[in-house]
């Protein structure tokens, strides 16, 4: 009697295994979270040092228009105005997304609704191939094709926001397209059937039913593309011209957070103001990445409620 009671009360080998398994998988996730948190902490502590240790005011940093951290401005503080780069990053990202969105969604509709065979046989493999091309290649193509084209069309040097936006457009197009395709594919088939049965044309079905129900997913795809464009460094750096000037038009050289960050990181010494202020730029990038993420999450939730 006691034996069997003990046996019943005791954890079986299987449940122990179950515990171990759960612990292992939990440890994996905990490790990943730990690594990410330490990266966040690392960037944040360096980025914040600009304001705490070197006494730069946050407002000067975010709204100043002159970027020259090595020298002292008229008010006796280092010239660390990051506004030109912030503006540059945003304009380039928004432009690229604005051009890429209709193309990507158009292609996705074509691939799922209009001609799935062509889509599957030709477009899909090409798009998947292009997702894996390193950004340096895009930058190189931008430098040897887009920049001369812009120079011949608009004059000037050809380096500038518009060139960067075009390169980014091509870069994020495959990503956004393939994500949009996934979203459209997940719209249940009976939605379409119901709509067609009601006498709607193909376009009406696409426009009023499929696109409507896929909106959150499509938005997520676009925001994801924007996040990628925002964080892209090498390709942009090669074609934007990297002048830390407030962008006044689309064809003169400008700069983005990432281009200034990558260019100067190696030439500054750890722990100095010049270096810390670059980490502050990285911090902005990080906050933006977080923002884009929360945005996609929020869109996803909204979509789920409808």
């Amino acid at each position, binding site marked *: 009697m006691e034996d069997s009671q003990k046996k019943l009360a005791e954890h079986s080998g299987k449940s122990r295994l179950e515990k171990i398994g759960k612990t292992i998988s939990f440890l994996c996730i905990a490790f990943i979270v730990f690594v990410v948190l330490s990266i966040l902490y690392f960037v944040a502590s360096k980025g914040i040092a600009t304001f705490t240790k070197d006494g730069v005011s946050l407002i000067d940093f975010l709204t100043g228009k002159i970027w020259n951290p090595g020298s002292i401005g008229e008010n006796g503080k280092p010239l660390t105005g990051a506004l030109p780069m912030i503006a540059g990053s945003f304009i380039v990202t928004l432009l690229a997304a604005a051009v890429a969105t209709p193309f990507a969604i158009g292609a996705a509709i074509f691939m799922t609704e209009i001609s799935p065979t062509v889509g599957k046989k030709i477009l899909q493999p090409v798009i998947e191939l292009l997702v894996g091309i390193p950004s340096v290649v895009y930058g190189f193509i931008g430098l040897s094709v887009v920049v001369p084209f812009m120079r011949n069309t608009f004059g000037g040097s050809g380096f500038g926001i518009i060139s960067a936006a075009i390169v980014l457009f091509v870069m994020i197009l495959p990503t956004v397209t393939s994500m949009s395709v996934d979203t459209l594919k997940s719209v249940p088939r009976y939605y379409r059937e119901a709509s067609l049965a009601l006498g709607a044309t193909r376009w009406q079905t696409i426009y009023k039913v499929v696109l409507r129900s896929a909106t959150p997913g499509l938005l997520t795809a676009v925001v994801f593309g924007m996040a990628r464009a925002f964080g892209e460094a090498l390709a942009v750096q090669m074609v934007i011209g990297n002048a830390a000037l407030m962008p006044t038009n689309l064809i003169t050289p400008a700069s983005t957070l990432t281009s200034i960050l990558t*260019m100067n990181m190696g030439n500054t*010494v750890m722990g100095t103001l*010049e270096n810390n202020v670059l980490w502050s730029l990285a911090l902005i990038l990080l906050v933006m990445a977080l923002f884009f993420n929360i945005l996609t999450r929020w869109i996803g939730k909204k979509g789920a409620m409808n």
Partner: protein
Amino acid sequence: MKFNRYNKLAIAFISTIFLAACSPLEGEESITAVGSSALQPLVEAAGEQYGSENFGKFINVQGGGSGTGLGQIAADAVDIGNSDIFAEEKSGIDASKLVDHRVAVVGITPIVTPEVGVTDISLENLSKIFTGEITNWKELGGKNLPITVLNRSSGSGTRATFDRWVLTEGSKSIVTQEQESSGTVRQIVASTPGTISYVAFSYVDDTVKALSIDGVKPTDKNVKKNKWIIWSYEHMYTNGEPVGLTKDFLDYILSDEVQNTLIGALGYIPTNQMEFERDAKGMTTEVLKKTEQKSD
């Protein structure tokens, strides 16, 4: 538990690698040199030769920029820190402990797109271009073509040297396009009409035109005689006096064998052929005769 077996295998493999990592083989030695990307090809080439002549010695050469090189050598994280500029010139570096080894001299020349119609320029006008006072090649007797100024990124050694010797005291370059590498600079200058920038002598080729300044041509000979003033040393810094393999390698680079062959072949000017020398403050003095005899 198929899955677990694979896991065990993987763990075993990874741990062997980690264990292996901890104990380098007897008789093999390596040092790491980090920093200036301009100096990197030279040190790499010298390291390759050194490695083939001395079995089991390895010289790891990495880029990362002069700032990284100086920062890491000051923190004693690497064996050699490569830099295009004097440690004293870089803010945030404690130069007192660092020992300078000037392995080569590099001349820097302004380059322009071939069709601007200008081949010679005065130092004053060159300065005016970079400070934004002259904006069209027509003002210098060239074609009616707006000038596009292209800088290296601020903090790069080439930029520092150019600014130091070209721009008039106290003035600053206009905020303009910047590029990270000399190769990109040359490509952009070659393809964009009316562009002016500057690169080390070794980067000049047929696609761009090197300007002479006040009638002096950018040649090694003029640099040696200090007639061409835009030049700088390539430094290899050690933290304290070098010892062991580091010392051997530096001696090797500074030996006549390397100085007279490799350095010239890569477009640098050997330090021992200079008739002038400079200190960190930019004071240039003539080298005493006896060193010159030594180099003969």
